[in-house]
């Protein structure tokens, strides 16, 4: 039927059906090789090479303009690099995919500013973020299965908002909103989590709790954290990558990196 294809498209059918999952047979979940991005002659990324292992918790630091956000944009498909390749596992070419496809394949990104749905409860926010068929008719008649309920409950437990499940997200504290947002990412069951400045504006207690949360998330999935706060980085990271002028300046355990003269120079000036 000719008409049905229009209806299908308008209803969003066929959207997000069976997204590919990354092949982790070589234990590397993300390959960025020779990535270069220029904006009007300015090289935001300059032949960047970066490898993230499966289950790893990696911190990325670097001064303003080092290319951290641009790197995230390349991974999530928001920005197309001029050169280089980006692979998710062994088989998925990120540069050939659109933003929603990349999200469906299992890369979740948390932005700096938390944007939760303020007039929905914590529970409803997680329900909305749940992975699955999001076409209009399915959602109109959707009911939560016991399995999905259990999944929401376990995420509520992980992010420590179990007691606040019925509270409106708009009334949460800044830190709680950040955790809820991480929870919303988890509901989409990502293999790779990109987290942008999670502790900006948090109290010390909240920062500590966030550190515990991020550490607990690694292992089952890979987590990449971009952060300025060195104390925070020290409290969570095993491996740190320092970006400078669009490429990797240093990489390794935090103590080694912090004492690296090149890093000291970049961070403290001459």
């Amino acid at each position, binding site marked *: 039927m000719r008409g049905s294809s229009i209806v299908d498209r308008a209803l969003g059918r066929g959207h997000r059906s069976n997204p590919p999952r990354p092949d982790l047979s070589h234990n590397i979940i993300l390959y960025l090789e020779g990535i270069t991005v220029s904006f009007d002659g300015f090289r935001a990324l300059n032949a960047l090479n970066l490898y993230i292992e499966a289950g790893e918790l990696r911190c990325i630091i670097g001064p303003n303009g080092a290319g951290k956000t641009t790197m995230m944009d390349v991974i999530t498909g928001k920005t197309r690099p001029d050169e280089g390749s980006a692979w998710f596992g062994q088989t998925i070419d990120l540069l050939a995919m659109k933003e929603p496809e990349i999200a469906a394949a299992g890369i979740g990104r948390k932005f700096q500013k938390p*944007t939760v*749905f303020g*007039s929905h409860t914590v529970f*409803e926010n997680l329900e909305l*973020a749940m992975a699955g068929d999001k076409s*209009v008719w399915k*959602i*109109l*008649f959707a009911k*939560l299965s016991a399995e999905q309920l259990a999944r929401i409950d376990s995420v509520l437990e992980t992010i420590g908002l179990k007691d606040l499940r019925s509270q409106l997200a708009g009334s949460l504290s800044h830190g709680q909103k950040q955790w809820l947002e991480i929870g919303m990412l988890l509901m989409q069951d990502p293999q790779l989590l990109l987290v942008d400045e999670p502790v900006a504006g948090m109290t010390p207690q909240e920062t500590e709790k966030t550190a515990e949360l991020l550490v607990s998330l690694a292992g089952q999935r890979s987590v990449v954290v971009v952060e300025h706060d060195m104390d925070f980085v020290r409290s969570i990271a095993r491996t740190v990558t320092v970006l400078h002028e669009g490429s990797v300046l240093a990489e390794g355990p935090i103590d080694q990196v912090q004492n690296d003269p090149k890093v000291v120079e970049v961070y403290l000036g001459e």
Partner: protein
Amino acid sequence: MNKSFISRLMLNDSGSRLFLGALLIAALVVPLLNLVVPAGSALHLPTYAVTLLGKYLCYALLAIAVDLVWGYCGILSLGHTAFFALGGYAMGMYLMRQIGTRGVYGDPILPDFMVFLNWKELPWFWHGMNLFPVAMLMVVLAPALLAYAFGWLAFRSRVTGVYLSIITQALTYALLLAFFRNEMGFGGNNGLTDFKELLGFDLQKGSTHVGLFLITVLALALGYLACRYIVNSRFGRVIEAVRDAESRARFIGYKVESYKLWLWVFSAILSGIAGALYVPQIGIINPGEFAPINSIEVVVWVAVGGRGTLYGAALGAVLVNYAKTYLTAALPEVWLYALGALFVGVTLLLPQGIVGLLRQLRSKKS
């Protein structure tokens, strides 16, 4: 948490219960006071009052349709009477074809205005409109198709906010101008009127108007329940999410334009049904129904009642129209100022409308 169908529909909120209870009482009391209580009695409800109440309830259904898109999805439509009028015209065409030889010119096929314009044949789009099922299909289809075409273009291009509101005004204004033209084949300036009967029931008879009133009550109740189901479903939570943070909803994987489009089309269908019920009760449909000011009035009803509540929209429609009936009779020159003042006043003092005020009072008490 596993909500049953009924509880998802409603009935765990007092507003829904009150609203449906009020409709039930109206459905029982109005026919009683009109048909059973003798005409001389002080309690007798004259037929014109039944018709007036029926008109208010048609407006209430239109207001609910606007609240569904505005209150829950943040789409401020300033052109919803376009859908209302299209539904009305579809019903009007059927009623015109029922006149038959009883018209002034007595033509068995052509409505009076076509004879007057010296037309020899029925335009193609008037064929089949003498059949009630076809006409009812058009009541739904005409607004739905217009809404689909408009929504497909507007939402896909991500037109939002005030820009969308302005385009909806342009839409209804364009239709106003088009329907004014005799060549369009909808009776031009005069519109469609002089109706005789609906499904064989004499439209001059009081009992027919009571019947129409009851059907309007039923349509309003069913329309309300359908909207309540939608807003209580996960679909409803998605459209609220779109209202609050559209790009975030898109980022989580919802095709925002599809959600808006189908909500918009459903809302247009409800408006069309309201218009179709309005026309036989009022006895006329003309291009004036497309006037942009009418659509703005609907938004005022919703704002006064309390948007994002559905029953508040219905309440606002009835109250504001009662005030309009009263004021346009008592102080006709005051009405438009009163309407403007009402809108400004409600926006400044009662952002949540009457329902919001009542909720505040109740939460203060407890």
